[in-house]
Every structure is written in structure tokens, then in C-alpha cells.
């Protein structure tokens, strides 16, 4: 995350061992450190056992873990939005990740950054109509603030009705944290029913 601050995001998962086939992937939770020491209290490491591809063009996969994680002060559930929910412009959100800071922060810990949602209509002005309904945007700030390499797949969590909701998924944008340029995320509410369906079926 460029232009962020160290922070806490108990639903943010770190995907590790991606240089191996899926059978080697692991998720790490419950830590703020990019390289937690073995035995760090609260760290949970769970292998991934299955991957389900999302609807065409969603850039999403659902990962099934080998076993449930333990929810505690460091690991919490985040809400999913109802199907088709559109985050109102101006809603306060935040991104989190252990990715590239471009020297703007401490890249040894989880960094967060606050962003505000803008409508697709407004976003399409700068992106010349290329933003799809299954995507959403946050406003471009004067200073470079946003996600970068290593943050992809991370959350855009928005505070709605007194709860944190997973409204967006970080995807690679043309440029990291480009000043005055809206960032594009996958709109999770377009896939909420699919998520529930995969778990149900």
C-alpha cells in the first residue's frame, strides 16, 4: 500500500507459497508482520485445499481452506454486502496489504489507507467509460495513496451501518496510487450470491 499507515485489519489474509502448485498455497492470518517469526502468538497458517473459479470476467477465485481458522481479537469475520448493493458515493473505506509501499511506509508491517467511494459515473469520466458494473471506484487523492504490487486480492472494506463490509477486491490498476486518478476495484456485491452458492453447493 502506497501512502498508507501501519494498522489492523483482522480479516485481511496473506496468501503464501504462491511459487508452488495450489497444493502448497497457504493463508496466514492473525499477524501484522510481513514476515512473522515462527511461533508468533496469534499467527494462524492454514493450507488451501481447493480453488473455485468465479464467473467469467470476475477475476475472482474462492479458496477453500483445509480447516476453519480460529476467530479471535486478531482474526475476525467481515460482512459480505447483499447481492447488488451499491456503495453510496462518499462512503469511507480502507484498503490493507503487505505489498509495495514505494518507500512511503514501513513495509515490514500491514499498511492501511483510507479512501472514499465515488460513483461509477464520476469514475468513468477519467476512465473514459471503461469501468464496468462489476467494478467500483475510489477517488484519486492529490497525494499518491493506493494499492500496489503485492496487495492484489486484498480488501476494500467500507464502514456501513456500523459494520465493516467487504465491498471491493483490490485488482492491479494501470499505475500504483496515481495522484488525482480514481482506483478501480472488483465490486463484491455482484458476486455475493455466487459466493453463497459455492459454499452451499
Amino acid at each position: 500500500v502506497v501512502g498508507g499507515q501501519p494498522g489492523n485489519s483482522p480479516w485481511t489474509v496473506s496468501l503464501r507459497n504462491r511459487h508452488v502448485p495450489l497444493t502448497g498455497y497457504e493463508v496466514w492470518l492473525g499477524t501484522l508482520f510481513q514476515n512473522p517469526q515462527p511461533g508468533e502468538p496469534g499467527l494462524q497458517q492454514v493450507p488451501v485445499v481447493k480453488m473455485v473459479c468465479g464467473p467469467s470476467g470476475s477475476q475472482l477465485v474462492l479458496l477453500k481452506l483445509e480447516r476453519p481458522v480460529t476467530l479471535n481479537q486478531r482474526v475476525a469475520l467481515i460482512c459480505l454486502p447483499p447481492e447488488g448493493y451499491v456503495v453510496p458515493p462518499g462512503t469511507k473505506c480502507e484498503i490493507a496489504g503487505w505489498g509495495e509501499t514505494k518507500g512511503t511506509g514501513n513495509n515490514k508491517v500491514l499498511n492501511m489507507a483510507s479512501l472514499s467511494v465515488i460513483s461509477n459515473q464520476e469514475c468513468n469520466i477519467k476512465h473514459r467509460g471503461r469501468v464496468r458494473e462489476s467494478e467500483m471506484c475510489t477517488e484519486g487523492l492529490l497525494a499518491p495513496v493506493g494499492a500496489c504490487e503485492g496487495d492484489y486480492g486484498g480488501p476494500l472494506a467500507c464502514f456501513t451501518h456500523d459494520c465493516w463490509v467487504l465491498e471491493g477486491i483490490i485488482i492491479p490498476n494501470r499505475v500504483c496510487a496515481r495522484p488525482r486518478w480514481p482506483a478501480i476495484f472488483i465490486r463484491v456485491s455482484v458476486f455475493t450470491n455466487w459466493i453463497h452458492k459455492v459454499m452451499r453447493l
Partner: protein
Amino acid sequence: QRSPLNDFQVLRGTELQHLLHKVEPSPWQEDTADAEECARRCGSLLDCRAFHYNVSSRSCQLLPWTQHSPQTRLQRSGGYYVRACIMDNGVQYRGTVAVTTGGLPCQHWSHKFPNDHKYTPTPRNGLEENFCRNPDKDPRGPWCYTTNSAVRFQSCGIKSCRDAACMRCNGEDYRGAVDRTESGRECQRWDLQHPHPHPFEPGKFLDKHLDDNYCRNPDGSERPWCYTTDPKLEREFCNIPRCGPEAQPRHEATTLSCFRGKGEGYRGTANTTAAGVPCQRWDAQYPHQHRFTPEKYACKDLRENFCRNPDGSEAPWCFTTRPGMRMAFCYQIRRCQDNVQPEDCYYGTGEQYRGSVSKTRKGVPCQHWSTTTPHKPQFTPTSAPRAQLAENFCRNPDGDSHGPWCYTTDPYTPFDYCALKRCDDDRPPSILEHPDQVLFEKCGKRVARENQWQSKLR
């Protein structure tokens, strides 16, 4: 003179594993003369169903289960590995070839007819059955007495491991049996963590075939290597002959404008990272020093500063021109659609689709709605009559916003969307026009950030 072994099926090189670790089989019984003796002991016990017999330690372990019992698994035995080729003069060869270069069947070593000889099989000298062996260190390699009295003995022509398999490219798909490094050190088994602990567990790298202690290249190195049994040297390259031009290189489906799989076949000219940072040339060592030089990875097409995937990473990548960012992926390159061509189209969410397309977007045939295998359906012709769930046609009984779907005949994929597309003249309602209200129950709570983080800083 019925042998007790007649009651059992012999499976060489395997072992029965019980998946519940708590269940212990009986201990090993040493000094068991042979498998027959072990079979005799098992046969005399009502609860003995199978047994392990270890030829080299001459020990027997009785088992109350078989591979057909629940929670058991038959797997390759780690203690049994046979190399099909020979190192040096093949004195250690223990393969099962039993025919000579002239095509003559070999005579059993325990037989003195038709050719009498001085050798006697023992558990140590490996003179088993009528397999080719080299008890007298013949420089021409393993041989045997033949069953033809006119030809007393003949060589078996077993290939040297060095020549049995050659290496293409950087040897990522070398599957030969060389187990020595270029300095002659023996390789450490991949499924052992000593003398050198390492991350390449065979179970986690199934596609790398990290068999026994053979040289392999699981990490995109320039050629096959192994960890050594020498505690002072962790790993070392192996000398593997390169395949000649006549050996057809495996054709990677190369792509130019998109990438497939991990993008190892991508040969396009994208030369920036997903975040727009220009890539460093592969033949430069500045700002980042690296080992991926074009000459050492000749078949990876490391031209100029194009995004490539020379080491099996998850997508094409490059070293960046930014000193603070060593490498980055080129996710801006589109992933090739490996979907099959849509065969029909639908309107809206496809709830009214009544066509007869019956395969998924990956081309997997759909399961019949009325059957229960391989997946137990939640939507059936009786439970969702209005959806007209006929045969295995694609339908949308639950109003899925992503279109018609079906249960699949792939046991690992319960359901998937179909080889259909939205009709060109379809105008679905936009979700952006009517945002509706939201109510949340539990979830989305977290400890107040400030106090937890401050305590950590302090």
C-alpha cells in the same frame, strides 16, 4: 504342498497406511526367514488380513486391514526404489529386466540348468529370480545365464542412467534417474530433511516429480540439481546430457497477446509491470543483479525487457527499473480465455432459457438434473418444476445473476456456468440505478484500532 502365500496377493514396493494416526499396527517381528513365514503367521491369526515383509531387514509386520478397509491407503513404499538404468558398471542394478540383448530369457540364478554355475542367491547379493545382474563386475554391465544351452550367458544391454534420459531447455521436465552431482556427491532424498532441511516437499510439488534422490529442477534454476548427502555442501548441479537437436522440444503453446496457465509460453512484448513501472532488460544486471541471463535460459526467450516467466512463477514477470522494487508481475497482460465457444445465448439472467446446451464454459458435460452422481443436486425436476430442468440442459433454477448453469460430471466441480453468452440485443437492468437499503446482523466488528496498535508500538 500349498504355500501360505497362496492366500495373499503380492504387491511389490507398496505399503498400507492407516490414515487415522492413532491406530497402531502390530510391531515388526525381526528374523523372519521369508515372506512365506510371515504369511504363515498371519494366516494362523483370525484378525490378520495382510502383512508387510521387508526383504532387506527380513522383518514382518502383521496388519488387521487391507487396502479395501476404510481409512487405509495403499502407497508407494519409501523404502523401495528401483532404478531402471545403471550407474557405472551396474553392480548395484536391482531392476527386473530378465532378457538378454539377443532376446533370450534369462535363467534363474537359483537354477543350475541348463547352465551350471557357481552363484548362489542371498538376500544381500541381489541374485533374485532371473533378473539381469553383475555379480562379477563385468565392465559391460549386468548379464545373465540364458535358458538356451547353446548360449551360456549374454549381456542385457541396460542403459546408463546418464544416457537414459537427456535434458531439454533448463531441465524442468527432466525425469531421469541420475542421482549424483557434478562433483560425484550422492544426492539427498527429496522426502528427507537431513542433512539439509529444505522447502521442496514432494507432496507439495506433485508436478515436479521429486522422486527418491534423483536430480531435478523444481525452482527454475538453470539446470537440474539436488541437495547433497554431504553436510558441508547444501546443493549442487548435476551433469545431465542435453538432448540433441533431434529430440523434439516439448511444444509450449506460445501466446503473444495473452497468457495461458502460468504464462511460461508467453512471448509477447509487454515490457512494464502491472503498475506501469518499466522492466529492466534481462541481459542487464542493473539496477538488479540476477541469474536469469538470456544465454543460460536460451529457450525462455528472455529478449530485451519483455515480461516473461522463466522460473515457473504464477504469471509473467520482470525485474523493474526501479531500484527499490526488484521484481513485479505483469498482470496487465490479459489471461487467454480457455473457455469453449459459447453455443447459444440467453436474455436477462437466463431463467427463461430453454435451449439444449449441456456443457459448461470449460467444456465439461453437464450432469443430468434427475441423477444424484457425481453430485447430489439441490435443484431437481420435482423440486423446481417451473425451471423445466430437462435432461442435462443448462438452466437457471435459482435466478443466478451470472446466467444458466448446471451440475457437472467432473467430481471436483459441483457446478459451473455454461457455454452460453448474453444475447447481443439484451439490455439487463443496471444495479447502479436502484441501490437498495442494507441491513447487517453480526460480523464486521473489530477491536478499536488505536489502542491495540499503540500497545504493539510501545
